[in-house]
């Protein structure tokens, strides 16, 4: 069994708006091991992004503690990469320079990482677009660029917030397959937020089910499907048994 990578203990978050206070997350506990693929599954608005952003150090917490590799999270960390729901590419930068953006921010050598950026783009089949602007790429391609950008500085933890939810079903399947391929190759810890049950089952080692506001983790399901997984696994009874189990968990 591999070492503990992310530990969330008694995390709570209350948003204070001008009018009132919204208790988004009441108390969440969560342990993620190194190289594990974990999904956070729940309906829209239940607080999945809130939890993920807090793990990324991008959100002030109201209570509890979050540790990554044994260290308390106090802000964004260089060993973490984030992929958002939209690609969030800078329209004024070429694809290659978008991928290299974190390297500039971290003050690392651009010359050294250029090679790696091109390799990542080759791996995601985007190499020939490296000098194009983002607006010339489709939504799925843009999201692949965003994944390359999140991986460029070789983080050990990848946080993904519904990265494929804006894509059509076929592109989404392809992206899921590609994500697993990348994950098998790089062996990163992935925290993946989704509201799609099938996506969660297909990708994950474990699925954390989140209840609606104020959120708690209502269920943790181990997905003991063999790897590497192929899309055909979605036709198997084992797969569908997990889907049913999770659906029941969500519906309470």
């Amino acid at each position, binding site marked *: 069994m591999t070492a503990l990578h992310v530990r969330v203990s008694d995390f709570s978050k209350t948003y204070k708006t001008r009018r009132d206070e919204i208790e988004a997350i009441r108390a969440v506990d969560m342990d993620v091991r190194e190289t594990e693929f974990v999904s956070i599954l729940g309906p829209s608005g239940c607080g999945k992004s809130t939890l993920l952003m807090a793990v990324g150090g991008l959100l002030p917490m109201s209570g509890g503690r979050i540790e990554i590799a044994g260290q308390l999270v106090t802000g*964004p*960390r260089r060993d973490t990469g984030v992929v958002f729901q939209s690609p*969030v590419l*800078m329209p*004024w930068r070429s694809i290659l320079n978008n991928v290299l*953006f*974190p390297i500039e*921010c971290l003050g690392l050598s651009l010359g050294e990482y250029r090679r790696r950026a091109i390799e990542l783009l080759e791996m995601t089949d985007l190499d020939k677009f490296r000098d194009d602007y983002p607006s010339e790429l489709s939504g799925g391609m843009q999201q692949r660029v965003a994944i390359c950008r999140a991986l460029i500085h070789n983080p050990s933890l990848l946080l993904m917030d519904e990265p494929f939810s804006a894509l059509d079903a076929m592109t989404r399947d392809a992206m899921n397959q590609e994500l697993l391929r990348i994950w098998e190759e790089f062996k990163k810890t992935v925290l993946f937020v989704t509201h799609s049950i099938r996506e969660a089952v297909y990708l994950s080692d474990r699925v954390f089910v989140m209840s609606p506001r104020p959120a708690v983790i209502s269920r943790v399901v181990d997905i003991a499907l063999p790897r590497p997984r192929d899309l055909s696994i979605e036709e198997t009874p084992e797969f569908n048994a997990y889907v049913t189990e999770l659906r029941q968990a969500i519906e309470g």
Partner: protein
Amino acid sequence: MENTKENGLANYLAVRAPQIAAPTIISTLLLVVWQVGVEVLNIPEAILPTPLRILETIVLRWELLLLHSWPTLSECLFGFALAVAVGMGLGILLALSQLFRVGVYPLIVAFQVVPKVALAPLFIVWFGLGMTSRVLLAFVIAFFPMVVNTYAGIQSTDPIMVRMARASSATRWTIFRKIEFPTALPYIFSGLKIGITFAVIGIIVAEFVTAQEGLGYLIVFSEGNVDTPMLMAALIVLSLIGVILYAAIGGLEKLIIRWDVGQKM
């Protein structure tokens, strides 16, 4: 977003030719009507000279026109540059500093309500009839669109983009330089275009009032002499300067902003 790279020039001309031809034909037609109308109706030159007469004036008295164009152009650029530097600086400070937003923004808005042209006599009292007064008038007029557009441009930054940058360990300064400023650039360029137009207005009004030199001065001087052809010649040279300055900024914009600005992420 069509890919015009491949069949470049031919395609470009096919699209552009009617766009260029139509206004050319219409303006030529108008000039002909003007020329013939003035001749047929026997309108006195002091009221409305013919286009050919104005052209003749420009050709024959170009030295005088040039003599007065130079101060207008240089003072205009000077006032504009000042407005760009101060306006952009203030716009950036407003966007980045809560203190400035609360303390200074209301003052700027209040100041905007003042019709700046009305400040010309005051500037003369303070700074005399020289160049300083004229440059300052151009400055105060061109300044506001620069502040507002810079500020609005930075404000238009997508918060998700800022979050992405923070996730990449960007500092506040990096976020400004690499996210907010490029986001604001299209806004800044429209500010520059409005600003240069305003600066020309400022200079001309100041030249009317100070009556020392420049095309504005030439215009009021010609009016005093009932030299309407010269007045209109000066007007045309002035318009030409305005168009060239505007086009220069437009060209710079095309050079710098090569990405698709309509793209919303």
